[in-house]
C-alpha cells in the first residue's frame, strides 16, 4: 500500500533522494508534510507541477494518489 514519489531535476538535490515511497493514499497535505521542508517550499510555487499516473494535474492540490501510483514532482523545466 504505497505511492512512489519521484523528485525530478533540482528537487532531487533538495530532497537528497531521487525517489521515496510514501504510504497510500497520498493527498496534497500528506505530500507536503512528508517531503523535506525545502521541497515543500518549492511545491508551493506556481511553476512546480505534479504528475500522478503519468498525467500532469491541472490543480496540484487535488492530488489523490492510490496504491501503486507514481507521483512526479516537476520543477521548472529547461530543455533545448
Amino acid at each position, binding site marked *: 500500500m504505497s505511492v512512489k514519489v519521484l523528485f525530478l531535476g533540482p528537487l532531487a538535490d533538495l530532497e537528497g533522494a531521487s525517489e521515496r515511497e510514501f504510504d497510500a493514499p497520498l493527498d496534497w497535505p500528506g505530500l507536503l508534510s512528508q517531503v523535506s521542508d525545502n521541497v515543500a517550499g518549492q511545491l508551493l510555487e506556481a511553476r512546480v507541477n505534479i*504528475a500522478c499516473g*503519468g498525467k*500532469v494535474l491541472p490543480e496540484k492540490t487535488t492530488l489523490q494518489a492510490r496504491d501503486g501510483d507514481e507521483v*512526479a514532482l516537476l520543477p521548472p*523545466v*529547461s*530543455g*533545448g
Partner: protein
Amino acid sequence: MARIAVNAPVDVRVLENGFSVGEALAAFNAAHPDSGGITSFVGTVRPDGEVKALELTHYEPLTLPGMEEIAAQAMERWSLDGMLAWHRVGMLTPGQSIVLVAAAARHRRAAFEATDFVMDHLKSAAWFWKREQRGTGADGAWHWISPRDADYSDRARWEKE
C-alpha cells in the same frame, strides 16, 4: 543518400545517444521532396567557460507525449508538410547536439515560425531539466540551469489573444 529515415509528416524523438545533424537533415529533406522550404535549428553544448559536461534528465512518461503535443500544435497552426523534433537526454559533452528541430513547408514564413515556435516550447514547456558540470577538479561541481526570463517571454509571444 541518407543512412537514416525520418517519419512523415511528424518525427518526434527522445534520444539516448548522439546523432548526426547532417544525416538527420538529409533524411528530413528526402522525406519531404515536395516542400519548397525547410528551416532547421540545432542547439549544441557550448564549449565556453569551464563547462565539462551537460546532463539532461527528463520524466519519461511525459516527455515524448509532451513533445508530440508541441509538434501537433505547430502542424495545426501553420501549413506544414512536415516537422521533426529530436531532443537528447543523458550525458553530453561540449560540441554535441542537444536538440534539432526542422519544419518543411511550401512557404518559408510558415517553416520559420513553426521551427521558432517548437524551439520556444522545447526550452520552457517540455519535460527536461539540465545541469552543467563546471570547475577545475577531477569531478567539478554540478549546477542546475534555470530557464531564463527570455525563455518565458519568447514562449509567451505565441499565446493567442
